[in-house]
């Protein structure tokens, strides 16, 4: 990993700061994501293009000889090349140690247990017209007012009549999805 430092120093010399990474994203239409750090990905550091610039002397030499405008342009060029390079060799870098793998399995299973025990899923909640009233059965049992009963039975009768009157007129061909699976 020692060779990463000179590369980073080289880029810092060219750019002066990291803010030019935003310009890169805009200029080359490269969508930033959690994987597109500015040369923070080891895969990018391993790219052969950057290994060739592995020299502090080279960077110092360029920094002294190039004007500021050219430095920025070169900085953009180097970074966009690093981001756009397809690096198959990076695939070997993601292998986990066996111990860490097992530790993570345990950690995840513990967290999922905790989470699923605490989360109340909406489908598990009560359903129905009176779900927002606690102890709805008790409330209904103590309801003695005849007016309330009459009003409720009227609502029900009218609702039922309205449902019976519903009619569907087919005007066009209807495509019915099979709902598979």
């Amino acid at each position, binding site marked *: 990993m020692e060779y990463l430092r000179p590369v980073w120093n080289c880029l810092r010399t060219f750019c002066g700061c990291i803010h030019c990474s935003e310009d890169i994203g805009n200029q080359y239409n490269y969508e930033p994501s959690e994987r597109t750090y500015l040369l923070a990905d080891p895969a990018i550091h391993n790219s052969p293009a950057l290994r060739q610039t592995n020299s502090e002397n080279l960077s110092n030499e360029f920094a002294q000889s190039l004007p500021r405008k050219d430095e920025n342009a070169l900085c953009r060029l180097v970074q966009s090349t690093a*981001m756009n390079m*397809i690096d198959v060799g990076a695939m070997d870098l*993601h*292998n986990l140690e066996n111990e860490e793998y097992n530790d993570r399995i345990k950690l995840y299973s513990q967290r*999922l247990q905790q*989470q699923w025990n605490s989360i109340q899923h909406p489908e598990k909640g009560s359903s129905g017209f009176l779900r927002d009233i606690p102890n709805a059965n008790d409330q209904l049992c103590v309801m003695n007012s005849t007016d309330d009963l009459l009003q409720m039975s009227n609502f029900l009768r009218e609702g039922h009549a309205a449902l019976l009157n519903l009619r569907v007129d087919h005007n066009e061909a209807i495509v019915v999805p099979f709902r598979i699976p």
Partner: protein
Amino acid sequence: MTDEVKKYFNGLLHKVNGLYIIQVTDRDGVPLLRVSQDKNVDFALMPSFIPTFATASEQAGKLGLGRNKVIISMYSNYQVVQMNKLPLILTFVGGEHCNTGHILALEHQLDAHLEDIKLAVNEA
């Protein structure tokens, strides 16, 4: 709750004819949830197989076709469908005659449950 989620995933597994495994892992291939039928298809669940997808998906985006979210790999006896749901990776393993479209249609039915599982990974 864990049993309910597994039951739900198992239900989905049996809805698609020829689907053998549904597995949810993090991007390094560490499994969070797995439901399977009795089939020996461990090749697709090896720790190196899944992170390779994550990298391949990322690198393939640089080819000029844009960022992809699903890779379907067809083999002589099996097919593997891998979906990028970062920080999770969803892996389906089915037989060669399994209807790939049916597997892809499962995505939307799993999304709600994946949100809960993502929390466990994000805390890490």
